[in-house]
């Protein structure tokens, strides 16, 4: 069974936010408006976090694009009282919007702030949305799914064309949109895949690895070019 993962090369990331926009369009992520944004209610499954260098203050800005890290031992799923969030056999952490009771325990438990809440009814179903992704109602938590619907589509297409499914056919919107090709996606369980090789690079690190959450989004630290 595949184990989907992602490698993000921070050396290549320019902080352009193309991944953020691609994700929003792909997953029907609502635009909450300026007023709500000011109150800290932006929903952004993929979010570019910025960190300034502590040593050279202001000199270096570090961009960390952060989707859901799809932990292999997710702290969010354990605390959900209704199994509305779960880790599927292929390692993707899903959210059942129709079941979520909106207690926000998973948000409190996630050390990466990767889960978002619908404080209001931000949008209704309408034209222009991606029909493959359901529109979330008010009062439920939503999150990045590694564009799981794309995996389903790719599998169905392969089935219809009576051929084997090729993992290369499944790429999330953020990875597809990145102009700097900083995001590599693939099957971590296949040692020959590019994402597996990069995950074992000496530059590879995971966010707060010490927490034991085993994220499947792996970062490559800066250093190859900027030294």
């Amino acid at each position, binding site marked *: 069974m595949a184990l989907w993962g992602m490698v993000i090369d921070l050396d290549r990331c320019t902080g352009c936010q193309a991944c953020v926009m691609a994700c929003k369009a792909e997953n029907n992520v609502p635009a909450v408006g300026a007023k*709500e944004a000011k*109150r*800290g*209610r*932006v929903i952004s499954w993929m*979010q570019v*976090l*910025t*960190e300034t260098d502590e040593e050279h203050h202001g000199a270096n800005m570090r961009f*960390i694009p*952060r989707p859901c890290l799809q932990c292999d031992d997710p*702290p969010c799923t*354990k*605390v*959900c*009282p*209704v*199994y*509305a969030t779960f880790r599927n056999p292929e390692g993707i952490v899903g959210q059942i919007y129709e*079941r*979520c*009771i*909106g*207690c*926000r*325990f998973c*948000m*409190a*438990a996630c*050390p*990466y*702030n990767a889960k*978002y*809440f*619908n*404080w*209001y*009814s931000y949008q209704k179903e309408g034209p222009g949305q991606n029909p493959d992704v359901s529109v979330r*109602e*008010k*009062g*439920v*938590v939503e999150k990045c799914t590694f564009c799981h619907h794309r995996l389903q589509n790719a599998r169905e297409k392969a089935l219809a064309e009576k051929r084997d499914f090729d993992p290369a056919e499944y790429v999330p919107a953020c990875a597809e949109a990145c102009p700097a090709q900083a995001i590599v996606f693939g099957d971590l369980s296949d040692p020959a895949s590019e994402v597996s090789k990069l995950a074992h690079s000496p530059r590879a690190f995971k*966010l*707060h690895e010490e*927490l034991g*959450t085993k994220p499947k989004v792996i970062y490559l630290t800066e250093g190859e070019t900027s030294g």
Partner: protein
Amino acid sequence: MADPRDTHEDILLAPIEHTGPGFYWAVAFLSLLILWGAIAYSIQFTEGLGVTGLHQPVGWGFYVTNFVFFIGISHAGTLISAILRLSKAEWRRPITRMAEVITCMVIFIGAGQILVDLGRPDRMLNVLRHGRYQSPLLWDATSISAYLTASLTYLYLPMIPDIAILRDRLGKRKLLYSVLALGWTGTEHQHRVLNRAIAIMAVLVIPIAVSVHSVVSFVFSMTLQPSWHSTIFGPYFVVGAIFSGIAGLILTMIIFRKAYKLHYYLKPIHFRYLGQLLLIMSLLWFYFTFAEYLTGYYGAEPEEMKVFWAKFTGPFWPFFWSMVLCNFVVPLACLASLKRHTVGKVMIASAAIVVGMWLERFIIVVPTLSFPRLPFPEGVYLPTWVEWGETAGSFGLFALFYLLFTKFFPIISIWEIREGRETSLKEVEERIVSYLPGEVEEKT
């Protein structure tokens, strides 16, 4: 009934027999608070939780604070009353009923906070349908419903003889009292069965009460978040719960002592003993707080320190230091010596503690969420009128429930006071004699 001292029992029945204008004023005031809360909640229900000040990263605020606070107050009752009963503390007699009523009323309010906090209260039953026992919220649901059941039983059992008194003496609500009195006639056999049942419940209720606030703390301590992930949270929360519970009980006693003129029953000695208990809990609370923060500070993990300094000198300092003032400094100053002005001093300490313990819950819930590990935009949580309304309404609802209870049942146990006069005097004397040096009677 021939005993002339029994005329004082009329004081205890008076609030049930007669209703003065004070009652209506109180109900009117409390109804206003409840109305505020009801409007706030109905708007939240239709619009969404967006009308509150919650956001990301601070997804939990007043409601969760209130939840922990109210469930904490519930430890007033049943636990205190059970411990005093089991330790045969004779001064408990006029206090136990008041304490037990607090527990039962406040559990409803506390559990209700979680419903108010849900984004989808309409899907509440998913907790039963798809319940996941790995989640501490399920532990809460189990423990709190067990506590509610046990507390209601434990409140009801010692009320049976009093309900029989009401049935026999009062002209009104005959049917209600007859049904609830379960045919109590006060025979010796009935008394024996009742006392046994009360003793069993008193023993049962203690571990349940301890479990309740332990699992409430587990909601926080089971996560990996800085300043939450702590092994002492269970006992720390239980201590805080008993602490705030006693303070809540004392305030209730003082209010009803004045309103229903219970000075004959609630004497300064009761307040002195409760005050001493409060002082011990205050010291214990301080010890736990000290141990908790020293461990965090000494280890000095960066994530931990962000939250630590936020509380000590950062944006949360007014709350943190008010908490220390209310929970430790004021109680210590008030309760160190209770020889004179006992009731006044105990009242000030209790009022401070109720505020202080609310702040303690707030200071546990919000700062941790305000400082995420990643360079995520930090948020300042400012509650809106909705949260204030809900909080006011919750207090109002609790007070109204309590007030209505006193209109149906005596707030001080009549038969237990009688029992104190009639049998305990002798029993205590015999007990003391049995402690004194002398021949040991072999019992095999």
